[in-house]
């Protein structure tokens, strides 16, 4: 069962490498082997992601685990240069001044206090003959700990109040290895990724026939899926970065897959802005590593619980907000999305808008803000501002669009604004209330629950809408709403699915968008932000307006002469859309049935803030 989590990455990754070979072998005889492998991999991923709910897999899976016996962690400190005896007090030979001591860690048990200056260390068994090793930074001590034999007792030379003490330290376990984390949030995202990927690949079977070189298509698509699953399951900052880049590079290739002028232009723009985002994120990771001496999210969170926030941590958070904001296309970092998402082939647009901006943007941001860095009002207000701006700007830009896919892309910005706003309100309530009453607990719970619910819903209805746009383009050859109309008669199923998607995104009951938007509005108003609540309702109304236009010009109206002979799209495409359409209806109506399994654990895991460290590291 422990293999289940790595499988989510390994399956699509293996498929990505098998597919080019398989397609070449199949091409000789005209067999669609590449497509079959892709579909099998997507099905396997779906099964695995369901199995993560059913089976009792541990919350953390360590890969390459190595336990060292002597744990010196639990201390943070800053280096100080040597001081000559004089005005400042006694002489200090240079070392590290302890800032924080995490309770119940080795440092605490040994009796080290904040303000102590550690000036040297040596292995205790070596006795008097050895001199103390000088200590430059706290990281050297951590590194020494990781390299020494388990159970080694280490003597620290400590300056306290002008006296020199020797403190022996030996402690609990420290873990060196790569963590894969499977908590409620991970499960939710895995399931969303698996469902949308399955629908997109099913849709591609027919849709991609119009393209050449199709064997080159499924391979990056599988890499994209592997990257997204990797982001979601890894519990390690740098692994998240690597998988982020895997997904990003695959998506650059997919956006430019048509290799026409527009596609290349969009892809280049996406590449440049994404590279800037990666730079910001890597810089943030460097700062965090320097401060905490670890890249493991849970170990960083362990410090956050007790730490005063220092300036460098704020700087890192600012870099993360900018970097992941770019990846999630939050206003003001949104410029690439309306070009990149419509330029890709329709199933890829569905993947990009449906899951990529969530997995590589909103998910990581939520994980960092809630679980790793801990709630703070400054970050909360930044999130709320970004969410509100995205919501409003996105929808106003969308209303004027006549290009169907571009309109959908602008609505992606707007709808992700809802999610970020809701999460921001959740952070704000959690950070504002020093002593949480039951009432504030439930406000925060409702906001985060609504945000995650809307995230899942958006994946369903935005993928559905992009797929139906693909279906329309597949048969009519245009995505300009002015040249379309009256498809109700000629393409009844596509029209029905497009209508379900439109009603869901505009928040019309009984479809899923209504319920999540309602929850978000209630939570926002309950938290005391009346203006934001009013804006949320206004944006919802504008969305309805915009999609009334879509229905008017796509489904209703007169059929242009040019389109008198269009036929309904082939069965696999309809099946893919049908799955998502059923989800659009079911996600809303069946919330009482599945909410406790899917959404509640995810919300609880975000609500526990830095308690994440304890649940991941255990004990």
């Amino acid at each position, binding site marked *: 069962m422990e293999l289940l989590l790595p499988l989510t990455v390994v399956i699509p990754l293996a498929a990505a490498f098998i597919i080019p070979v398989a397609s070449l072998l199949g091409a000789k005889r005209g067999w669609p082997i590449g497509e079959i492998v892709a579909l099998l991999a997507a099905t396997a991923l779906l099964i695995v992601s369901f199995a993560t709910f059913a089976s009792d897999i541990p919350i953390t899976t360590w890969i390459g685990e190595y336990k060292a016996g002597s744990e010196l962690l639990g201390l943070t400190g800053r280096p100080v240069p040597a001081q000559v005896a004089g005005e400042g007090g006694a002489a200090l030979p240079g070392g590290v001044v302890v800032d924080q001591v995490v309770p119940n860690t080795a440092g605490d048990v040994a009796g080290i206090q904040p303000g102590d200056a550690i000036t040297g260390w040596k292995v205790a068994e070596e006795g008097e003959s050895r001199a103390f*090793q*000088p200590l*430059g*930074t706290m*990281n*050297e001590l951590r*590194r*020494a700990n990781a*390299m*020494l034999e388990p159970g080694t007792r280490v003597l620290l030379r400590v300056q306290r109040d002008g006296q020199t003490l020797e403190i022996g330290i030996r402690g609990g376990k420290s873990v060196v290895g790569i963590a894969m984390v499977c908590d409620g949030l991970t499960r939710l995202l895995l399931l969303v990724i698996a469902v949308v990927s399955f629908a997109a690949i099913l849709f591609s079977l027919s849709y991609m026939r119009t393209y050449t070189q199709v064997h080159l298509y499924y391979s990056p698509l599988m890499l994209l899926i592997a990257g997204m699953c990797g982001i979601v399951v890894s519990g390690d900052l*740098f692994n998240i*970065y*690597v998988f982020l*880049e895997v997904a*990003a*590079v695959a998506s*650059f*290739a997919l956006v*430019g897959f048509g*290799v*026409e*002028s*527009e596609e*290349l*232009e*969009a*892809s*280049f*723009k996406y*590449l*440049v802005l994404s*590279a*800037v985002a*990666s*730079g910001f994120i*890597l*810089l943030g*990771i*460097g700062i965090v*590593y*320097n401060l905490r001496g670890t*890249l493991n999210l849970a170990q960083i969170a362990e410090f956050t619980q007790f730490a005063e926030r220092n300036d460098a941590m704020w700087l890192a958070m600012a870099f993360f907000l900018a970097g992941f904001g770019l990846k999630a296309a939050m206003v003001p970092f949104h*410029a690439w999305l*309306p*070009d990149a998402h419509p*330029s890709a082939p329709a199933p890829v647009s569905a993947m990009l808008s449906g899951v990529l901006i969530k997995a590589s943007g909103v998910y990581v941001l939520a994980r960092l803000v809630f679980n790793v860095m801990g709630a703070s009002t400054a970050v909360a207000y930044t999130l709320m501002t970004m969410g509100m701006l995205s919501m409003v700007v996105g929808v106003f830009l969308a209303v004027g669009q006549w290009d169907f896919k571009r309109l959908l892309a602008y609505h992606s910005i707007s709808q992700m604004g809802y999610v970020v706003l809701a999460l921001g309100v959740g952070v704000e309530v959690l950070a504002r209330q020093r002593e949480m009453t039951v009432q504030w607990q439930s406000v925060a719970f409702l906001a985060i629950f609504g945000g995650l619910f809307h995230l899942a819903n958006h994946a369903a209805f935005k993928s559905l809408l992009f797929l139906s746009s693909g279906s329309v383009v597949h048969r009519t050859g245009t995505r300009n709403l002015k040249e379309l109309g009256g498809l109700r008669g000629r393409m009844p199923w596509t029209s029905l699915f497009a209508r379900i998607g439109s009603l869901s995104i505009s928040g019309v009951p009984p479809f899923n968008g209504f319920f999540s938007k309602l929850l978000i509005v209630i939570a926002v108003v309950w938290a005391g932000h009346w203006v934001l609540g009013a804006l949320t309702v206004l944006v919802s109304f504008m969305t309805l307006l915009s999609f009334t236009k879509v229905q008017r010009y796509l489904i209703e109206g007169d059929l242009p002469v040019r389109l008198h002979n269009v036929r309904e799209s082939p069965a696999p495409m309809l099946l893919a859309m049908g799955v998502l359409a059923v989800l659009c209806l079911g996600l809303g109506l069946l919330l009482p049935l599945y909410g406790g399994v899917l959404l509640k654990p995810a919300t609880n895991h975000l609500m526990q803030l830095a308690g994440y460290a304890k649940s991941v590291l255990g004990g």
Partner: protein
Amino acid sequence: MIHTVLPFVLCVVLFIIGLYAIAVKKNLIKVIIGIIVMHNAVNMFLVLIGFRPPASGPVIAPIMTPEMGHRDEAVRALLSHSVDPVPQALVLTSIVIGLSVVALMVVMALRLHQKYGTFDLTQITRLKG
């Protein structure tokens, strides 16, 4: 003091130069160069994080390992003299990622040149953005 701060200043300067090139320059190739400069500034920052003065490489020679006494000696030498190996591993990975991104970017730029006949970003504006 000054010689420990200066490399970080250089990092910041390079990062800003890169960002400037990306934001202001109109030539595709110059934008790509800006991205390379920016990524290298970040890579340098990572290397600097792990640096400390005696600065030997973080490698234990395998010839030392059979005898425990020698191994302990080697570990101790490593701990007191070597730089931090983790950022170096990060930098290696990040360089490889940067390489693939830049390669893809150059290919895109060449294809764009085939389509538009220019590297000038002000003329590559078929999308409304």
